[in-house]
């Protein structure tokens, strides 16, 4: 059912754990649905003065797909600028895992949502300008969460 790549990430997930005093945090998912993802970011500035992800860690409660997508997302964005990281789509996650079963596609969405939330959290904390599009994205994720809680 799962590709070899999914099982590799599932068995030996990269970057799991937490970061003490993270610069930002993104948490998505819902216990009732069985998937909760938490992403910790450490942000620094590169030579060009752009914010980039210096370190990233995840904690996930969920199935093999949830763990594998969390792991692969951390790989995809580590070292990337926040702008680049925001470009990551769930298709990129699925491709990096050589595919996901259709019924598990929502796990890849969850991983991308957690990343979006973590970056949103950082923008808010540092008082950076948030585009209308980004705000909408954030609101969609939040509304999803509340809906799930009912």
């Amino acid at each position, binding site marked *: 059912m799962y590709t070899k790549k999914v099982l590799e990430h599932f068995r030996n997930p990269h970057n799991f754990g937490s970061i003490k005093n993270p610069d930002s945090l993104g948490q998505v998912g819902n216990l009732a649905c069985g*998937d909760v993802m938490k992403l910790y970011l450490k942000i620094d500035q590169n030579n060009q003065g752009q914010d980039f992800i210096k370190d990233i860690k995840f904690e996930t*409660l969920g199935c093999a797909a949830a763990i594998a997508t969390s792991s692969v997302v951390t790989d995809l964005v580590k070292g990337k600028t926040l702008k680049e990281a925001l470009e990551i789509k769930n298709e990129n996650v699925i491709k990096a895992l050589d595919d996901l079963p259709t019924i598990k596609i929502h796990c890849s969405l969850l991983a991308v949502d957690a990343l979006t939330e973590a970056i949103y959290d950082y923008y808010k904390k540092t008082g950076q300008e948030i585009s209308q599009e980004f705000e909408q994205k954030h609101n969609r994720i939040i509304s999803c969460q509340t809906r799930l809680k009912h």
Partner: protein
Amino acid sequence: MKLSTKTRYGLRALANLLGQDCCCSVKKISEAEHISSDYLEKIFSKLKKAGILKVDRGACGGYSINGDPKKITLGQIVNALEKAEFICPDFCSCQSKSAWQKIQSGFNYVLNSITLKDLSSKNKKIYLDYAATTPVDPQVLNYMLPYFGQDYGNTASMHQVGSASAQALEESRQIFADILKVSPKEIFFTGSATESNNTVLKGVALANKSKGNHIIISSIEHDCVLESANWLKTQGFEVSQISVDKYGLINLDELRKTIRKDTILVSIIHGNNEIGTIQDLQKIGQICKEKNVYFHTDASQSFTKVAIDLSKLNIDFLTASSHKIYGPKGAALLYIRSGSKITPLLHGGGHESGLRSSTINLPAIVGFAKAAQIAIKNFEQENKKLCELRDYLIKNIPKIVSDCHLNGHPTNRLSNNVNFSFDHVEGESLLLELDFYGIEVSTGSACSSNTLEASHVLLATGLRPEQAHGSLRFSLGRFTTKSDVDYLLKVLPQVVNKFRQISPFK
């Protein structure tokens, strides 16, 4: 017949080769197995010619298995090394010639059903999912074999081969009648427990419309009962679900109060497939008798694990399944108390007294009957062993894994069922990780289901969804040993801890 030295040595060497991580030189294997290297070289070159082995060159040169060991049969290996024949020479015209041909075909069947993988002791699997299905007992398989070949007759045919089949069918029916203490006329064979349950729910509903349109089931039925009831709702029937307590026992008062004048059927599972809780058939039967409604029980999991004497119980319909008791898949039974009103689902040639038209699947049915006979013969001994292993796990899992909870009834449960919820982890990931350790179990987590919904059975016992997601079912069986469950106890804490470390909840 005795295997030739060549074949015996060949099999030993292949088993050794299977255990190696990469290709292996003849010298290494000849030393390990005490076979002269010249002789082994001859054997290997024959196996290579037959496509069973291949030669790899280079630093790590030597022989290796050519292809998937699961697809290489013992028949191929034996044929590569010797001429294993039972057939009389062509010129022979003795009376027993056809008998030898049958022996030869049976022999080939057995050899081709064993694969190279079966020779390997590496990657041994510990199967703890007997509630999902069971392997066919070798005695059962042997008993079934003639019914594919020489005894192939259609039970509905009048000639001799047909009559012999009809007789075998009736003997099978008698075996179940004796076990359940009913008349053989009340035993009907179907293709699966799902079919039996569908037949009862739909067949009783449709045949008793004049009495009413109300059906009662429990909140912990198997999907095939639940979905049949849901379908009946779309056809204008009303369905009530009886709740269960935290152990999964149905509320008998609620059942009594829910039965109405227009209730036609009560269907309650006997031993639950997920949590193992066993319902009190005597009490439920009594209530249904007082209220004059039909009572059906799905005994797919409990049959041969709990004694069921239908002469002493008020039960109108009962379902039992072959593949849960070491019989083949594709056979099940439905007991219908004589005089009960039911409409068939399948119409046609009028098999099974018109209840279930379909050519009789005789090999599966005789296998089912044989499996039941073996299970009943060993009833006490086998269930005693299972209860001991079950209770050993129930006692020890909480000692070695923190924050876990037993699901189902502590004592009144199927002899082979153990079900635990583990806090802060998810079942599918536990299942897959255990699978890497060679332990095969199942989970009530939504993530492993097609609907992404947690088990309705666990939720009905009052578990929160996250607890249901973190559940594992270990179901034991005939071939489970103490060392198997000890291995589980050794592996389980590290598996649970691995995912608790990854989990945001500690």
